[in-house]
């Protein structure tokens, strides 16, 4: 029999960015908030203690901050005709674990969104006609516009302490020749901090991109270009380009995280409680399944505990939000055969390609050991719908960038293709090329398809006896078309640098999704937002269509993957949803959008 805790106004599942933002917004509204985080307590000290945190073996290789696959994982298969097997070793994607979630170990690239991508289906239908979108591609509009979200993007950047250069502010051109992005939508304010400095690799990219006629800009980075105090009074130090961002706790207090930018303020709130080591099993519903009554979780000692609450926020990682909805019976599960149902629908990812560029040993000292996770130079000439897709026959765009995040000693040595993988030739090449190379990515958007979805696995269970989530996912023809087009355009930048060698890493047509090699942790969809309960799991305020006191923020709400990194949109949508809870839902609890 589960122990029952005292009722709270709000219970939040997961304490990453979305959980922290919701906790702050809702305690500000005077509500009592309990946040449940499955992993351990983590903070800059002791987890980011200098110099112990500068430890590639512990953090990158042994994956210290990531999901513990011995307790729970997902199963993966390519098509409905395959049998899914558990993802036992982390590879392609690295969800976080512990206080701060993936927001503690992320890199810090902090974009907004291209407005077109929020109404992707409508935009493509308007510009290219309905038939342009291939059969089986299930892209949708988000149901919210950039203009509606702009104040929340702005506030999130101020909370994160983001470094960057605006192009226009309130319609006034401010960023020309200063690192602004001419394709960026208008902003209500400047970035809170100026852009970070660019290392040699990003400077080379910038010049080469100009030379081939593209429009380079400074990446907006949630690594600070100087000391900063955010609107909550939370402080950051300046980034020193140590190169230990992604996968690490930042010891310089300079990479934005829920732990650094929000939790200190929450600690001053008497109405807030954070319980680490609390693994939520399910959301409890009333018998008619119309209302949530709280959640049941297992604490660090293995005790089953019920936490009653008036509002339930699912703030777990993308696929864990979807899994909790399926385990709890919130919303109708998606069926790929009929296309009906919504929970698990439109699971999408990222469509990456990489070009490595090698220079002569006397040319361009790129110092790859320095870096910052959010830092670099990018071009948006082929992102979103910034070019005419008509002749090319695919949907989606991609930013290109040099994002030198720091090349660490174990995994960091890369040689031109053709070099042996070991021995004296490998050593000689490593000596020649280590300090004379750079890497650029095409961080392609990824579309949603009828056959890529999430459901509960019929066979495998987690350490608590609950079914694992099953991913059914593979690359589609549109993905190959897009990434090859992008690589062709990006290669022009590489060639303009006059390198000694170029190594292009791109998926060959027909390649299947490979769980072993890392791509990104930008997983999307499964509990998507929209305007119609038949085709979306949550409404435009991230409120469950079926259980009105359940809100589901996160990239699980994205109907398809973006060209940009998702965190900025995740944060803005969470503030937008929180505002709707504060200003509408609390006054009149019930559906915020009538179905």
């Amino acid at each position: 029999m589960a122990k029952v805790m005292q009722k709270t106004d709000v219970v939040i599942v997961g304490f990453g960015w979305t959980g922290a933002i919701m906790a702050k917004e809702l305690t500000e509204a005077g509500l009592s908030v309990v946040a449940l985080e499955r992993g351990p307590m983590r903070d800059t000290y002791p987890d980011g203690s200098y110099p112990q945190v500068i430890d590639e073996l512990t953090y990158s290789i042994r994956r210290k901050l990531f999901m513990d696959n011995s307790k729970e994982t997902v199963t993966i298969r390519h098509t409905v005709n395959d049998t899914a097997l558990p993802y036992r070793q982390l590879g392609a994607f690295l969800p976080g674990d512990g206080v701060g979630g993936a927001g503690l170990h992320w890199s810090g690239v902090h974009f907004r969104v291209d407005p077109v991508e929020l109404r992707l289906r409508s935009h493509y239908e308007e510009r290219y006609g309905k038939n342009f979108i291939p059969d089986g591609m299930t892209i949708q509009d988000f149901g919210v516009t950039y203009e509606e979200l702009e104040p929340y993007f702005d506030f999130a950047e101020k909370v994160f302490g983001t470094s960057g250069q605006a192009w226009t502010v309130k319609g006034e051109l401010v960023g020309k020749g200063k690192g602004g992005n001419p394709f960026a939508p208008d902003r209500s304010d400047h970035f809170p901090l100026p852009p970070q400095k660019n290392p040699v690799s990003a400077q080379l990219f910038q010049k080469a991109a100009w030379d081939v006629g593209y429009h380079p800009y400074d990446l907006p980075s949630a690594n600070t270009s100087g000391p900063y105090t955010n609107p909550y009074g939370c402080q950051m130090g300046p980034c020193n380009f140590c190169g230990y961002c992604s996968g690490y706790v930042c010891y310089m207090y300079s990479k934005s995280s829920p732990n650094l930018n929000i939790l200190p303020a929450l600690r001053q709130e008497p109405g807030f409680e954070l319980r680490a080591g609390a693994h939520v099993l399910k959301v409890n519903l009333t018998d008619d399944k119309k209302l949530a009554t709280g959640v049941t979780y297992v604490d660090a000692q293995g005790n089953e505990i019920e936490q009653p609450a008036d509002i339930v926020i699912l703030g777990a990682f993308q696929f864990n939000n979807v899994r909790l909805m399926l385990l709890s019976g919130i919303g109708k599960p998606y069926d790929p055969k009929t296309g009906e149902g919504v929970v698990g629908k439109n699971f999408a990812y990222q469509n990456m390609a990489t070009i490595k560029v090698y220079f002569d040993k006397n040319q361009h000292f790129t110092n790859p050991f320095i870096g910052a996770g959010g830092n670099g130079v990018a071009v948006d000439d082929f992102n979103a719908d910034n070019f005419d897709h008509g002749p090319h026959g695919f949907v989606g765009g991609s930013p290109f960038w040099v994002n030198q995040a720091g090349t660490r000693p174990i995994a960091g040595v890369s040689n031109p293709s053709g070099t042996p993988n070991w021995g004296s030739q490998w050593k000689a090449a490593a000596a020649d090329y280590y300090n004379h190379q750079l890497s650029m990515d095409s961080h392609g958007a990824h579309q949603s398809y009828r056959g890529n979805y999430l459901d509960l696995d019929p066979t495998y269970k987690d350490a608590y006896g609950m079914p694992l989530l099953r991913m059914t996912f593979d690359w589609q023809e549109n993905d190959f078309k897009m990434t090859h087009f992008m690589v062709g355009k990006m290669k022009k930048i590489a060639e303009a640098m006059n390198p000694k060698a170029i190594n292009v890493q791109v998926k060959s047509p027909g390649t299947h999704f490979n769980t072993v090699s890392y791509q990104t942790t930008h997983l999307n969809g499964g509990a998507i937002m929209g305007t119609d309960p038949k085709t979306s799991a949550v409404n435009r305020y991230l409120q469950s269509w079926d259980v009105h006191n359940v809100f589901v923020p996160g990239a699980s709400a994205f109907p398809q993957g973006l060209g940009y990194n998702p965190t900025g949109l995740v944060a803005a949508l969470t503030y937008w949803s929180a505002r709707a809870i504060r200003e509408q839902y609390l006054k009149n609890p019930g559906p915020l959008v009538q179905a």
Partner: protein
Amino acid sequence: MKTILSALALSLLASSAFAQDAAPDQALIKQGEYLARAGDCVACHTAQGGKPFAGGLPMETPIGTIYSTNITPDKSTGIGNYSFEDFDKAVRHGIAKEGYTLYPAMPYPSYARVTKEDMKALYAYFMSGVDPVTKPNQDVDIPWPLSMRWPLAAWRMLFAPEVADFTPAPGQDPVIARGAYLVEGLGHCGACHTPRGFAMQEKALSDADGKDFLAGSAPLEGWIAKSLRNDHKDGIARWDEAQLVEFLKTGRSDDMAVFGGMTQVVEHSLQYLSDEDLTAIVRYLKTLSPVHPDAQPYQRNNAVSEALVKGDESPRGAAVYIDNCNACHRSDGLGYDRAFPALAGNPVVQTDDPTSLIHIVLEGGTLPGLKHAPSTIVMPPFGWRLDDQQVADVVTFIRTSWGNKGGPVDPKAVAALRNDKNRTTSGDDVGQTAYSNQPDQTPDLR
């Protein structure tokens, strides 16, 4: 929301039940609470992890350990049976209700100048604003004959001033007078910041007693309470009023960060004081004349920063500095505003006695999250990875670079502090145990 409504209903019920009591003056209790904050009563009268004001905190003295007492209004073990006169006798006169003299760990020589009016507010707070806790007081761990109390009475007669309401000097600026009242009285700043004489008495209880007042102390629990007089090298001359007010309120300013025993003072006391009172405190401190009036202000010297930028690590301790300190405090020693304090020109690193700086290198420091500055910023400990020689070297480097005028430090001073059982420590700095609770960390990288 149901829970919100029921909580509201409950609190309404509670306040109406309360209203039936013999209505203590809420404003007076509130004022007493504020004054108790100003006096930082909670710091000594609360054991680690214990209930507020229930006593039991051990305090090391040269003759043995004494324990603070229960000052909650509990009738059997606290001060619930104290009349106002009993309370006043203890706080301002140093004499317990039972008639014996208190150990001067209780700063009654400072409290002697608290006004009677404020005493009444404090009494109201301790009787009606504090939850009673039943917790018997703990006997002192002092061997006979030192445990006899009668010499304390003699001490009191020799060193404690006559109890009298503080009165401003004629013509004194009211703000400065308020500052003097808080600093010399309830704030009892001199308890740590004034040097002590042969009988552990504070050598001066106010500025009128001479330049020993707040001139900095010998190490206490492994920390120096620095001079609060207007000296350049190791006093507060460097900082202006706004910086000092911000420091007292938030534990930090652009180039300062609180550490050591002062951390708790900011945490439990100063962060709750009004801006007016903090300004008064600072304005008063700024009137204290320097011990060395002829000393020159800090003059920056760029030689070391320039050498470090060129990769020259030849000065003693420079290499240790680059490997351990430079990321945050920078080669120019200026740190970063509000996040990482400046070392260049900072008086706390230039005190004649280097104890505090050694201690902070060994054990690190935690800038606590506070009401007006919620971020906790931690300098990690380095004692586990640096040996005595390395610590002495880096401390010497910091004390003598960028124009700093502190002296060199001997490794023996580091060893002595490491082994000092009386200093406060979190245990993180003693060596191999630092990361014993993190099995996948390598403990010793030396």
